[in-house]
């Protein structure tokens, strides 16, 4: 009887010890597996950071490229024309007729003055991508000045809320580039005459709303290939900073685009 009891205790002790050994073994194995997942997660995070940095650099380059295109167009369409005209006016001056010569000189002075004014605007445009350092709203104002100069569009800009003290330059850059893409699309495809832009600073995010009175498009029926790189890029860019782009458009009813990005 006592031997049986001893055997029972013996089996109990052995089984209990085995269980008490299996428990830490499971914990250690779990930690090793978890640690392996951790390194994968860290690698993924590093890759995402690299992709994010690459996207920021790409965006910066695109903003600069856009600025250069604007400057090129301005030089060709405005300043070039003004200077050609003033050169033509000056070359047609006949000194024998002082009255006519005076009128032509005055016209040339006026043309040169307008050229200088244009050059000043161009200087500001050249700083456009650097204006983000001053503030997103300031950069948007300069972009609007450029659009209005064409005389084809009536632009209304509303700025709501207080810009946070801690700004995020990466997010400012992305939002500014998205705005540029939207404006490019409006200029290229919408045939709009009126553009409304609203920048709203909310508690946790920044919202950019743009609508136009252009021809619009049927967003649901548009095949992916025709969505265009611009729209796809907007979604991708907003996505990398945790934001979203909402597009609402109907044929002949204009387009409304909202970009919401967590901020700062």
């Amino acid at each position, binding site marked *: 009887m006592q031997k049986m009891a*001893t055997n029972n*205790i*013996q089996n*109990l*002790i*052995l089984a*209990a*010890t085995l*269980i*008490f*050994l299996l*428990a*830490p*073994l499971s*914990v*250690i194995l779990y*930690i*090793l597996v*978890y*640690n392996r997942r*951790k*390194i994968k997660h*860290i690698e993924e995070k590093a890759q995402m950071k690299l992709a994010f940095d690459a996207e920021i650099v790409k965006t910066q380059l695109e903003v600069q490229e856009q600025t250069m295109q604007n400057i090129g167009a301005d030089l060709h369409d405005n300043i070039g024309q003004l200077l050609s005209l003033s050169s033509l006016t000056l070359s047609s001056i006949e000194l024998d007729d002082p009255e006519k010569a005076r009128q032509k000189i005055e016209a040339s002075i006026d043309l040169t003055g307008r050229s200088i004014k244009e050059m000043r605007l161009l200087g500001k445009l050249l700083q456009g991508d650097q204006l983000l350092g001053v503030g997103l709203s300031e950069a948007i104002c300069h972009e609007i000045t450029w659009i209005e100069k064409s005389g084809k569009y009536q632009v209304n800009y509303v700025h709501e809320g207080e810009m946070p003290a801690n700004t995020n330059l990466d997010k400012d850059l992305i939002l500014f580039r998205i705005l540029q893409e939207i404006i490019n699309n409006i200029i290229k495809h919408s045939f709009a005459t009126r553009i409304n832009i609203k920048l709203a600073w909310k508690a946790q995010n920044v919202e950019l709303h743009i609508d136009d009175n252009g021809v619009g498009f049927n967003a649901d029926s548009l095949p992916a290939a025709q969505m265009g790189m611009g729209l796809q890029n907007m979604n991708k860019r907003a996505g990398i900073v945790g934001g979203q782009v909402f597009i609402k458009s109907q044929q002949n009813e204009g387009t409304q685009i909202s970009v919401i990005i967590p901020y700062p």
Partner: protein
Amino acid sequence: MSVVIFFELICFIIAFITLIKDANFVWRSMVVFLLITCITEITGRWLRIAYHNNQWLYNIFMVIEAGFTSLMFGSILSRYINSKPIILSGLALLLLLYAHDVFEHGFLIYNDLTATVMSVIFVLYSFYYYFLLINDEQYIDLKRSPPFWWVAGTLFFHFGSTAVNLFFTSLPHVKIAGHNITYFIFTALSIILYSCWSYSFICKKWLRTISKT
């Protein structure tokens, strides 16, 4: 020579070779602790054969074990937290229980209550270390992490010995092949403990060599 003493000696030699020049005082102290462990085991074996009672010796050793193991846990946990309060609280509790055990049955009988609680405390420290390790955002190569393997050995030993500690009073009658059952269990646990510790000491030396190059 028993299997346990053999593994202890091997572990002591490895500790001596790998840790004697270690910059960390706490890790270096493991050499002293393992030397004391070997002396205690050899003396304990001799006392058991000559006088049939070596429990008082292990009561003395328990104090040394509690001190050195707590010191190591303090050092390992200090990477993540201020470990002093929990380590000192653990030691204070053990001191109280030790005094209670000695007052209860004298110094010649093994303080099994203190031993059980000490194991529980070290198991809790081990789990806490693993919890902090999991929550650490920084990646550590665990295969070559000295603290990880040192804690693994300690956890296996103290968690595995819980069953023996709980039934300690009933065990003297349980014998297999002429040996007390605790002999086999502690032999197996000691092999795991000293293997893990030896590996952790090798990792420590290896890390030092890497950082030098």
